[in-house]
């Protein structure tokens, strides 16, 4: 869809407000596509009193329709490959993906296993990787906040459809 790029001050101001809102209230949804749930309990730990993601406005949502960020873990087992793609397509634009854990980057300890695709990047476009097995809650928070800051510079391009 070609967006009519009006560069009037009103348009720029509106764009700034939209980016400010997106950066300050990123709702997340979590999907474990085959991980050993080490990363998943660290993601849940970020919601609890000591780390408390709600300070940054990040709320874990249940339905893909309500979410902006897909926090995905695990080396994408064959069974959950097209589920992952379906969830990604159910999310409204603008959407982002954070791959948590070294399994999502390169398959981690399960490289070469017969039922594993290997990395999340092969299934859906990923915006931020958080390495670690499992990464500490601080690292996960840093990854999501870094993604938000990168939004500050360039406003979100509409995601290209996944083939």
């Amino acid at each position, binding site marked *: 869809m070609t967006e009519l790029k009006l560069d009037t001050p009103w348009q720029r101001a509106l764009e700034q407000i939209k980016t400010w809102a997106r950066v300050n209230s990123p709702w997340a949804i979590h*999907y474990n596509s085959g991980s050993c749930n080490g990363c998943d309990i660290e993601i849940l730990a970020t919601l609890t009193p000591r780390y408390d993601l709600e300070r940054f406005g990040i709320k874990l949502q249940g339905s893909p329709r309500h979410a902006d960020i897909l926090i995905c873990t695990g080396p994408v087992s064959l069974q959950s490959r097209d589920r992952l793609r379906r969830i990604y397509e159910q999310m409204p634009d603008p959407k982002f993906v954070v791959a948590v854990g070294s399994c999502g980057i390169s398959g981690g300890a399960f490289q070469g296993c017969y039922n594993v695709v290997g990395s999340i990047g092969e299934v859906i476009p990923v915006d931020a990787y958080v390495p670690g097995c499992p990464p500490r809650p601080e690292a996960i928070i840093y990854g999501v906040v870094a993604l938000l800051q990168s939004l500050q510079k360039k406003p979100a391009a509409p995601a290209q459809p996944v083939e």
Partner: protein
Amino acid sequence: MENPESPQKFVVPIGPQHPALKEPAHFEFSVDGEIVTGASVRLGYVHRGIEKAAEARNYPQGLYLVERVCGICSHVHALSFALGTEKLAKVVAPPRAQAIRVLTSELERLHSHMLWLGVAAHEGGFDTLFMYSWRDRETVMDLLEQMTGNRVNYSINIIGGVKQDVSDEIKTAILKGMDFLEGRMTHYLTVVTTDETFLGRTRDVGVMTREQAETLGPVGPTARASGVPIDVRVDSPYAGYVDFPVNLIVDDGCDLLARFVVRIKEMQESIRLIREILDHLPEGELAVRVPRRIPENEIIQRVEAPRGELFYYMKSNGTDMPERVKIRTPSLCNWASVINLAPGYKLADMPMILAGIDPCFSCNDR
């Protein structure tokens, strides 16, 4: 357990992605109104083929892999694999290493049960207990990190012993943490047994009588909450449990409330055990040398994971790679009890009943 899908039945699919499930699995509850009439589960979303991968890795690499079967009970898998390999090689780890292994597995039981207490309360909509129990769990995670260097997948085991020692400074930190947790445990026990709305959600829900428990074959706290006295630490003590005996905690409440009570009492028992281990930590070196090539042999090793009896069958063929590693995790046994007991209860009870057996999908999909 795929029951026939008759068209007029209203089927509620709780799919791979669902806020109640921390890990993917596909449940289909056939419902009329709010009452569940049938339940079926499709696992396999987290299957990575670890048993096949273990055959292509030598023993130390296998230890690294087996720790990542499940993130919550990683030490127990590594302990079982290490004990099994030592049995294959007819080697016994030194007593100090055995005691440190038991210390770590009891700390892991504490953090796993607290994690479960939070998630089960969250399933029932009691978010405050979720937040409180996970806040207190951070103390155990700090202790584990101080002792082993990592919060999850602490890999303190090596084949033949342990890597890190327990210095006096760590000992005092653990004892201080245990005092704090003991107070919290009594608080949780009172909350779980007196809070009216919580009792409304757990009393007489998901009842499994003793006879059903014997036929459906659950293991661990789910079985002990229905009066079945099975606990590998008591039945066939392994590692340090020989010199630090555990007293069995059984409750014949048979319902979800009993499962909460059994697990909280188990945490109190773990705290007592940790204190006892730290008082009489045996002296000696930490590990013993194990040859790279393990002679041809075949063993069965059973270990008590936080969720129940973990069963390892290992077969070596003289090379430095195992010929067969069979991992039967406790969650696999507990599934039969959930699926057969679900009909009759309300749809709103399903997340609580599922959380009652503390399912770990990465454990049972391997």
